[in-house]
């Protein structure tokens, strides 16, 4: 591990080194009115001076005329769209005369992700557990993950919807990335503190002429992260959360939230840890079949449809399933929470249902709970 100072003009050098090293660089840029994680070729494409405003059911960008590269918080879609794409072809089956032949393609790109936030890195770690641990390993995810390089960037701003601190996923980034950057803006100085965490990251550093960082830089960085932490308004009380949720399947709050819930699935689609999927055969008239895996959601009726009916008929039962999975049964299954506090489900929920608010309401004992509290 090395701690270095990366000057502003060296940010583009870093990008060029990654591209020269055959990485497809994915980073933040303004596209379709949002910060989008997309293919970028130079630092000039980054969202310079752009910040985001996110609140329940609302999203907007603002140009604050700053030279800051990473002033926004998180993009609508997480890195999940690259590591675990929404639609994946598993294999194709072709008809040859009286027989059939199988065709598997695995030309996975080599991604370098620039701008991964603390919450998002934790989400990747959670998906690593889901797809790479245990008896059943997803070979496609494994290949993409092994080939990828993660350049994390610690947050400078927060949105109203952020709550990383209380679920232990930020704002600081202790480990899990190849390189960690912190954008420092202090007394007119603007530079990055850069830390290599892995050999892969160190190899990239070796191509750049970076000066050593000293204790003063670390103090500035720590103070910045502390300021970010104090800005976080929302929080989740995780102590006793699992037992309380599991003990309250009939809490009156479930009925209330079901009145607002549109069962549209937006929350699960934007969630960086949600991993549910379905498998469909897409057939052609000439007899070829493409077996595809696509994201699914516990909010759809089809998701729990089995022979004879649906095991979660009501929207209430689906919302309860989602929330208790994220904060309770996930702990049994993967030994962590299923939530990283990125706030996407709050922002992209059209009626603006706020999981932190729901959890707080559910923590009030049923017999003391008053509607609308």
């Amino acid at each position, binding site marked *: 591990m090395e701690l270095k100072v990366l000057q502003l003009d060296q940010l583009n050098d870093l990008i060029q080194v990654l591209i020269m090293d055959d990485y497809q660089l994915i980073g933040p840029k303004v596209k*379709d*009115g*949002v910060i989008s994680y997309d293919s970028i070729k130079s630092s000039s494409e980054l969202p310079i001076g752009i910040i985001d405003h996110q609140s329940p*059911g*609302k*999203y*907007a960008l603002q140009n604050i005329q700053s030279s800051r590269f990473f002033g926004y918080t998180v993009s*609508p*879609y997480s890195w999940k*769209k690259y590591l675990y794409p*929404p*639609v994946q072809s598993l294999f194709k089956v072709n008809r040859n005369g009286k027989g059939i032949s199988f065709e598997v393609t695995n030309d996975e790109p080599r991604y370098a992700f620039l701008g991964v936030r603390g919450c998002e890195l934790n989400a990747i770690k959670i998906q690593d557990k889901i797809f790479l641990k245990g008896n059943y390993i997803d070979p496609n995810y494994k290949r993409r993950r092994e080939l990828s390089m993660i350049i994390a960037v610690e947050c400078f701003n927060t949105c109203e919807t952020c709550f990383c601190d209380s679920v232990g996923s930020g704002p600081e980034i202790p480990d899990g990335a190849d390189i960690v950057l912190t954008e420092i803006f202090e007394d007119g100085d603007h530079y990055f503190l850069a830390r290599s965490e892995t050999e892969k990251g160190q190899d990239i550093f070796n191509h750049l002429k970076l000066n050593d960082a000293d204790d003063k830089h670390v103090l500035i960085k720590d103070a910045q992260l502390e300021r970010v932490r104090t800005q976080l308004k929302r929080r989740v009380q995780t102590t006793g959360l699992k037992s309380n949720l599991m003990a309250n399947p009939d809490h009156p709050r479930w009925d209330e939230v079901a*009145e*607002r*819930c*549109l*069962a*549209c*699935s*937006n929350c699960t*689609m*934007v969630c960086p840890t949600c991993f549910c999927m379905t498998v*469909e*055969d*897409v*057939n*052609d*008239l*000439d007899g070829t079949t493409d077996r595809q895996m*696509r*994201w699914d*959601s516990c*909010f*759809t*009726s*089809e998701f729990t449809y089995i022979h004879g009916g649906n095991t979660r008929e009501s*929207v209430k039962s*689906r919302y309860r399933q989602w929330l208790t999975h994220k904060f309770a049964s996930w702990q049994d299954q993967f030994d962590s929470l299923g939530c990283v506090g990125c706030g996407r489900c709050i*922002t*992209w929920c*059209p*009626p603006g249902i706020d999981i932190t608010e729901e959890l707080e309401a559910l923590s009030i004992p049923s017999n003391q709970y008053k509607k609308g509290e």
Partner: protein
Amino acid sequence: MGNNRPKLAVWKFASCDGCQLSLLDCEDELLAVAEAVQIAYFPEATREVVEGPYDVSFVEGSVTTPHDEERIREIREISGIVITLGACATSGGIQALRNFADVQEFTNIVYANPQYIDTLDKSHPISDYIKVDFELRGCPIDKYQLLEVVISLLAGKRPNIPTHSVCMDCKLKMNTCVLVAGNEPCLGPVTQAGCGALCPSYNRGCYGCFGPQDSANTDSMTEVWRHLGVADETILQAFRGFNGFLEPFKGASERLE
């Protein structure tokens, strides 16, 4: 498949023809479809008529006259599988707007000799009269969904026609949400997917052409639109579109009256 090709008939009721034209609109796949099935009755495409019975009947349009009632029952008699095409056949269509008013009054205003008009009080979906094996939603239907149904029939499998919201399709396409980020009134959360999230992909709110999704919460949708500053009368009109007579869109608009 040779002589085992299923015999296909396409029938029209009260409708604009747009849905059956979707079959002709298959262009690239049309020849393959014509090889895979025997197009036995399809006046829009050919004058040649092969007598029934038919293995598969596609039915477009809604039932609006006593004569229609008789005809749809006959079609059921001579058809193996009946698949309805589009909003008219599934919900009564845009012409079901009359279901919210007095049809006799309209008839008197529109026709010089209303005594010659023999019409029902309401525009009915096909399923009000006969057992329908499968319904394809949309105004018009989506040609890829139509192909999926044809291919699935031939392959003997259940077609992949999801009943979830348009939002799912927007998210799978990585669209920016026009409602959350654009303050655009959008019916996507309560509408069934199938169009490929066409309007939101072009920065327009969803019009609800595919009717309600399987778990549509229309009252919460109303609240979201009110929150965007949309007047109740406009929300009522939005629900009362091509699928206005289908619950829960019907109930949602009635509660806004």
